């Protein structure tokens, strides 16, 4: 049995490792081009290229840190009571009009529940997930959206079929850049987790084969 502290230590280690990897890449480029600056001092074009690349990578590091910190200052502004019918209608619209409509399927039972959410944020989080997934490299993957009521809360299950998130589980899925193999930025699940948290929505991964994420909306 692993204690809570040990679990936290593991999460912290994975977070630092993940972040370290993300930052070491631009640092490598900065270091490399700084060293190359001395090699072709009479080639103005090349010097310009070195300088530009160094500045670009500095900016990238800045963006990484900003992106990670940004979610801490998020505050939902428009939390209202929303019926499940409206949620279902909006989800249908999103799915039908998205470029991934062949890959995404919405399922639901006969649900009658009202919830307190900022619906547009939920839609944005869903879009973040769909936009961020690397569909072109995981061609046989499909996403099932399953809406149901669980413990008197509205549960939106996001079920990825046909892919194995082999290094991600319910304890570490939110670590930034850990899921970079499956998502373009690698911060999609982190963003959704943090923003959901800020909105009072519980976002968790509760099964890893097939990978299932659940938003529980109170």
């Amino acid at each position, binding site marked *: 049995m692993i204690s809570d502290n040990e679990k936290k230590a593991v999460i912290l280690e994975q977070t630092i490792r993940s972040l370290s990897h993300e930052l070491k*890449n*631009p640092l490598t480029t900065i270091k490399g081009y700084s060293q190359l600056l001395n090699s072709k001092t009479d080639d103005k074009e090349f010097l310009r290229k070195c300088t530009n690349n160094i500045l670009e990578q500095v900016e990238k590091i800045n963006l990484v840190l900003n992106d990670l910190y940004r979610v801490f200052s998020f505050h939902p502004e428009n939390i209202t009571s929303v019926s499940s019918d409206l949620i279902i209608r909006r989800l249908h619209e999103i799915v039908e009009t998205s470029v991934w409509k062949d890959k995404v399927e919405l399922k639901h039972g006969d649900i009658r529940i009202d919830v307190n959410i900022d619906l547009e944020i939920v839609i944005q989080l869903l879009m973040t997930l769909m936009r961020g997934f690397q569909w072109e*490299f995981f061609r046989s993957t499909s996403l099932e959206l399953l809406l149901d009521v669980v413990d008197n809360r509205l549960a939106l299950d996001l079920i990825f079929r046909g892919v194995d998130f082999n290094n991600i589980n319910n304890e570490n899925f939110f670590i930034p850049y850990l899921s970079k193999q499956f998502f373009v930025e690698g911060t999609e699940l982190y963003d959704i987790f943090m923003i959901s948290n800020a909105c009072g929505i519980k976002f968790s991964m509760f099964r890893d084969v097939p990978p299932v994420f659940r938003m529980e909306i109170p």
Partner: protein
Amino acid sequence: MRANYKILIADDEKGIRELLKDLLSDSFEVETVDRGDTILDILSSKPFDIIILDLQLPGMTGIDVLKQINENKVKIAVVVITATNDVDTAITSMKLGVYDYLVKPFDTDKLLVIIKNIVEKLELENEVSKLRQQVGENFRFKNIIGKSPEMQKIFITLEKVIDTDSTILIIGDSGTGKEIIAKAIHYNSNRKQYPFRSLDCSTIPRDLIGSELFGHEKGSFTGAISRKIGKFEVATKGTLFLDEISNLSIDMQAKLLRVLQEKEFERIGGNQLIKVNTRIVAASNKDLRDLVKENQFREDLYYRLNVVPVYLPPLKERREDIPLFVDHFLNKYNSEYGRDLKIDLKARLFLTNYSWPGNVRQLENFIKRLILLSTANTADQDEVKSLLEFEETIMPPSGIDVISPKALNKEESISLIKSLEDMEKEYLEKVLRHFNYNISNTARALKISRKTMHNKLKRFNITIQKIASME
């Protein structure tokens, strides 16, 4: 560094791909890839010499790419670059055959040194491969002297079996070319890119032969100050030639039989079983069947070795090859010694009809000696005959320049009782007479300097009678 080495840079980070391309494209052909799952396709479509591989790649991790490179036996040097600085990853990578491992952000100078070392290693490997090919070419059947029907039959037999890994037993008198045939078997087979090793079982002391064959562990016996890898292991996937196999002790024969049967062995003093895939070619100048009857050779080992027997005829039974050998050795040693000696027709005929008890080795040594000692442009029959007769009286037929008691007649054997000094004087006088008291030629034959020669003449009080030279 040469520009024709190709490097593939595999990193999902655009900045790093650009950096490495800028760093290396002056000296190498560089291509880049940003995903792990496309690397193997790229490597199979065109050859790369080096890959700089990030371990964190989308599509397929660098470790999985490494495993596939190993499974598919892709010949490429791998340099891993990674942001992870943990021992486990480093060990896993090294076990998968990675050349070197750099942690980001790495020093570009360090990467350049690694690439330079890889290029040097590749150039050495290319050179070894070329040399091996050249050596191999010398031993192709078509390049081995053997136009006689007997030798042609042997080549036909060997061509049928060279790629079957069956053991081959070569029986032939001393000097018939058993090792040449063993090398021909190796360099014409699909084992040619692997090592060829030989062991003359008659020259190694019996108590050390086990160590030579199987190696030993450090401390396994007095004098074993470090681990030694034996010839069986060194010749893995290649060929091990065991010459004079009849000289193996009965114990060693038993051990060899076990290795041939089980295809595994232990080093002396070791307890780890080592698998072998070494092809054995054995040779003997004695008929092993006779030794089996005399209980000096194990019958089961004999049958294990005698899967494909090859009987090399003595030179006198393949006279058609003698002129070819004469030409071959003339070319070889004329070139080596900067001479241009020819042999006239009568002399060639004489050589062709000579018995050659020492076989090809004797013929080779004779031609070498003739080139060294002849002062003519063309050696005639008299000169050839004279040198051969001299060899018969002074030297044993094996062509080794040692006086053996067996080569001496009755009077000479009585003179063994004389002092060494007397023997030396007699021998010196005999050689002088043979070379018509030509001091230079005599000195050369005896492999001493002219100064030493003069000292000996003075010491033994030998007076040179000046007569007309043979020239």
